[in-house]
C-alpha cells in the first residue's frame, strides 16, 4: 500500500461523519420517490454534489424539464468554478488523476486540499487522489445505506450536519497559521452577512462569493501587503 493512503485516510475522517449522515439523508429522501439504492448509487457516483442531489429529488417529483435542470445546476454549483482557480498549480502535474480530481472537487474536498499539506516525503498527487476517493466513497456509502433504510427506520440525526460547520471552522483556523492575516476572514464574514440579509438563502452562496471578490479586488493592495507567503 502506498504510504499516502493512511495519511489521506487520517485527513478524511472529519468528512466521514458528515458525508455518511448527509448521504444517508439524501438516500432516504430519494427513496420517498420510490427510487431504490441503485439510483442513489448511480447519482452519488456520477453527480457527487450534495445540494444538487437534494434539489434533484425535487426536480424528479415535479418532472422539471431538462433545460431548467441544466440552468438550476449551473446556479447551484457555479461557485465550484472558483475552487479550481486555487488548485490549478496543485493539479497541474497530476496526469491521469486530473479528470477524477476535478470530478471529486466538492466543498469539503476543496477545503481539505487547500489546507492540509501531506507530511514530508509523501507524494502530493497520490495524497490528493486518495483523499478525493475516500471522501467520494463516504458519500456513496451513506447514500446507498440511506436508500436501503428507506422509511423503515427513524434516526434522530438532528444536529449532525453541524460536523461540516465544525470542519470549515477548524480548516479556517488552520489556514490562519500559514498566512497570518485577518482581512480575508473579515471580507468573507462581511460578504456572507450582507448576502444573508439581502437575498434568499438558496442564492446566498454565489452572491457572497461575488461580493467577496469585489471586496478583495477593492482592497487588493492591503490584502497583498498583509500576506506573508510569497507568490
Amino acid at each position: 500500500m502506498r504510504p499516502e493512503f493512511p495519511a489521506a485516510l487520517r485527513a478524511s475522517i472529519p468528512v466521514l461523519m458528515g458525508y455518511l449522515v448527509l448521504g444517508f439523508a439524501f438516500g432516504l429522501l430519494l427513496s420517498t420517490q420510490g427510487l431504490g439504492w441503485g439510483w442513489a448509487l448511480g447519482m452519488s457516483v456520477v453527480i457527487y454534489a450534495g445540494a444538487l442531489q437534494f434539489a434533484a429529488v425535487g426536480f424528479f417529483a415535479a418532472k422539471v424539464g431538462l433545460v431548467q435542470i441544466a440552468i438550476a445546476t449551473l446556479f447551484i454549483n457555479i461557485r465550484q468554478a472558483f475552487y479550481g482557480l486555487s488548485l490549478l498549480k496543485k493539479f497541474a502535474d497530476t496526469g491521469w488523476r486530473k479528470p477524477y480530481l476535478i470530478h471529486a472537487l466538492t466543498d469539503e474536498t476543496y477545503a481539505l486540499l487547500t489546507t492540509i499539506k501531506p507530511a514530508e516525503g509523501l507524494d502530493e498527487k497520490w495524497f490528493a487522489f486518495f483523499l478525493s476517493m475516500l471522501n467520494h466513497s463516504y458519500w456513496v456509502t451513506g447514500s446507498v445505506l440511506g436508500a436501503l433504510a428507506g422509511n423503515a427506520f427513524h434516526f434522530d440525526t438532528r444536529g449532525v450536519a453541524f460536523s461540516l460547520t465544525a470542519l470549515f471552522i477548524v480548516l479556517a483556523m488552520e489556514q490562519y497559521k500559514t498566512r497570518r492575516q485577518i482581512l480575508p476572514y473579515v471580507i468573507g464574514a462581511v460578504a456572507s452577512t450582507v448576502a444573508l440579509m439581502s437575498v434568499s438563502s438558496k442564492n446566498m452562496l454565489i452572491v457572497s462569493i461575488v461580493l467577496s471578490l469585489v471586496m478583495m479586488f477593492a482592497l487588493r493592495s492591503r490584502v497583498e501587503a498583509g500576506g506573508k507567503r510569497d507568490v
Partner: protein
Amino acid sequence: MSETTYLLSAIAVMAVVNYLTRAAAFLFFPSGKTPGVIRFIEIYFPPVILTILIFYSLKDTDFQSTPYGLYELAGVGLTVGLHLIFKNYLVSIFGGTVGYMALVQGWIF
C-alpha cells in the same frame, strides 16, 4: 419519454453541467500558468471561501425565536475553544458536533 429515460437524462444533465463547473478553471487555463489577477485569487481566496462556507452551513439558523441562534453560537464557540486547547481537529470537530447535537436534541435542557 418514459420515466426511466427521463430520470437517466436528468441525471446525465446534472452530472455534465456539474462537472463543467468544476472543470471551468482548468479549461480556461490549461497550462496552469495564470495572469496575476488569477494568482491573487488562487492565493488569497481559500480563507475567504472557508469563512463564507461557515456562514452558508449556518444559513438556516433562526434568530427570531428561541433559542435565537444561541445553540449555533455555542457550537461554534465549543469547536473554536477545543481547537485552541487541543489543536487536534478530530477532537474539535467531534466535540463541537456532539455538543451541538446535545443542545438541539435536548439532552441537556
